[in-house]
């Protein structure tokens, strides 16, 4: 069994991924009427979510969602839920690939055709999702540990930069008196709930060892990252300027000035590390789908897995061709709403099973 620190890695990966998936942009759409209160509400709900997830999974050590549900709910419900989860995690990965290829095309290789970049990523992801679960967790550990210095770097630079407009940040804070908006709320809560692919990884991670202290630590760290996600671009681009920027965080990082650095633009380093962590997250999402498919006990023998994977490839390619750069924000807003709804379902199901177990014993 792997140690409890792998949960922290999954959580961290989700946090840093939010930059690539336009969470700040969605929050800025409502920056003048309701985002601040949405963020506060999301913090509270997110904390509850983490707490519930940890408590329930500690009750069912080393069992993935299929084994948890197997005797507690009727069979048809279980199978339906697993198929639903499968589709959900697949869509997560697919949408994130589309977002990632867009960012890469704009900044790194503007002349390489989009489909070529997409196929390279796809090849890597297909290679990686059929590996063992524990191996992928080890890869996550490595990627997270090499990502931490970058985050520290950016934060330290923000706090020590004399050119940041603190007034803009205060100005944005004064708009808290509005009612929270659904879109901002679901986008902010994705920061806390994206690591719910724990439903498959629980099999390999020993959740029993997590204490209250760790939960509080994770929660505080999540709050810190969410706040920096929202406020740092405002400090650099101004409150009226942030809704105008398409890739807010990349413009922000580009605005940080370093006198002595070995690269010309810090945006390249951030972008490379972002690609690493985004790719690992997408691999984890699709791996979750494949593992869930395996638990459906379809006597797969290896062939069904490949049928599923080729199905993934076809659908993602179609999505990639059809989505245009301008619409992608709309799809992400829809996706985050859908994600919040799925996580709500998950919480209800888990609570039901946990209460049933407690009554039984």
């Amino acid at each position: 069994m792997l140690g409890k620190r792998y949960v922290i890695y999954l959580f961290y990966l989700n946090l840093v991924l939010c930059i690539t998936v336009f969470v700040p942009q969605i929050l800025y759409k409502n920056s003048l009427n309701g985002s601040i209160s949405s963020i506060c509400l999301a913090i509270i709900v997110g904390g509850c979510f983490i707490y519930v997830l940890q408590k329930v999974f500690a009750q069912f050590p080393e069992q993935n969602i299929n084994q948890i549900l197997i005797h507690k709910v009727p069979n048809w419900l279980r199978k339906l839920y697993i198929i639903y989860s499968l589709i959900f995690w697949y869509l997560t990965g697919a949408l994130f690939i589309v977002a990632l290829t867009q960012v890469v095309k704009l900044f790194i290789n503007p002349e390489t055709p989009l489909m070529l970049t997409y196929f390279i990523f796809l090849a890597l992801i297909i290679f990686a999702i059929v590996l063992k679960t524990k191996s992928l967790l080890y890869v996550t550990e490595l990627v997270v540990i090499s990502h931490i210095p970058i985050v520290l770097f950016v934060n330290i630079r923000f706090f020590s930069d004399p050119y940041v407009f603190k007034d803009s940040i205060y100005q944005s804070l004064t708009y808290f008196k509005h009612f929270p908006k659904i879109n901002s709320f679901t986008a902010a809560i994705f920061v806390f709930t994206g690591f719910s692919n724990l439903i498959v990884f629980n099999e390999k991670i020993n959740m029993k060892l997590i204490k209250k202290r760790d939960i509080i630590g994770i929660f505080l760290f999540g709050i810190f990252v969410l706040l920096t996600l929202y406020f740092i671009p405002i400090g650099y681009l101004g409150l009226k300027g942030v809704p105008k920027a398409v890739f807010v965080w990349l413009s922000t990082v580009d605005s940080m000035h370093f006198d002595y650095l070995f690269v010309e633009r810090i945006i390249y380093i951030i972008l490379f590390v972002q690609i690493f962590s985004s790719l690992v997250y997408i691999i984890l999402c699709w791996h979750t789908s494949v593992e869930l498919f395996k638990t459906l006990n379809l006597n797969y023998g290896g062939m069904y897995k490949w049928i599923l994977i080729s199905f993934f490839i076809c659908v993602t390619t179609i999505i990639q061709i059809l989505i245009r750069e301008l619409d992608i924000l709309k799809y992400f807003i829809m996706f985050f709403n859908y994600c919040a709804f799925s996580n709500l379902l998950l919480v209800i199901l888990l609570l039901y099973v946990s209460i049933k177990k407690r009554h039984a014993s």
Partner: protein
Amino acid sequence: MGTTFLLSGCTFKDIDKRAFVTSIGIDQSETSDKKYKVMIKVAIPKGDPKQPESDFVILTSNTDSITEGLSLMKSQIDKELVFGHNNSLLIGEQLAKSNIQPILEFFVRRPDIQMTSYLSVARPNAFEVLNFKPAAEQVSGNFLKSFFDFSKTESPYIDSLFLYDAFRRETEDGITIAMPIVEKKKTQLEVDQIALFNKYKMLMELSSNESETFRLLTTGIYNGNLNVRNKNGMYIINMEKGKSKYKLKGQNRSIKANYTIKIKAIIEEKIDGLAIISKSEIAELRKQVEDKIDAEATDLLTKIKKQNLDPIGFGLRYMSRDSENRKMDLWDKNYPKLSFNIKTKVEIKGTGLIQ
């Protein structure tokens, strides 16, 4: 074999087939039917690393839009233009006095131009400044960059302006742009004045002394100078470190800006005689310096206020506290009535090596 086949579609281009653009300058067009004259300074690499020579080539084109200009220039050079290293953007004085908004928007929109490029006004026009070749320069275009890179700790007359800073000053309410002016004087470049803009164009410029005071009021100065004359002679005070903060006090009708300026100074030069400077003299000098700085600052702020410009950001500060109830038009009405209350505190640390 297979690699060469694939590479032809893969945008593989060696570094010696690329041309590095280090500065971009935009002027008012020479021909009357076009709007802009776009110029780029391209650095030419030399084979020998031991002899630094910064050769460059300037490409120009007269167009209506900057994008068109940049693509026209691709046909003037055989290599591919790379804008990623570009770090200074010059705007000609004539153009600065008409409209800079479309220029700013273009530069921010392009992803391959750094947001930390330095903006400046070029006098007499951008072409002269771009054409200038200093005596010793590693890479063409580095000269301007090093001016602005170290402006925090070297010259007290200039305050560098980043592209992202200009962008947010354009879009925010309550703050306007302050850009340094690069002037070409016969054999050298001089940067010691600041130009103040409203949202569209350049409205006024500050002299060197005023620029120094302006710098003191915004980001703080290092190694500034001040002359003070009293009955004992003329003294030159070197302000080693000066910082200022302000608070806005009062409600809608009468708003006051309370400035506190803290300066650490030493007496650097004493003209008229080698007499020892006594302690009472130092105290007297201190009072004089404080008064002088108070007066200069008040003059400058009033002058800026009269033109209805706000480069220090009083409007932004006002709006940021309780911006639901405060509106910009209310501030616009009250800005001319803003009064300044300046308190300077000077600490004269020493007098150098002799008393």
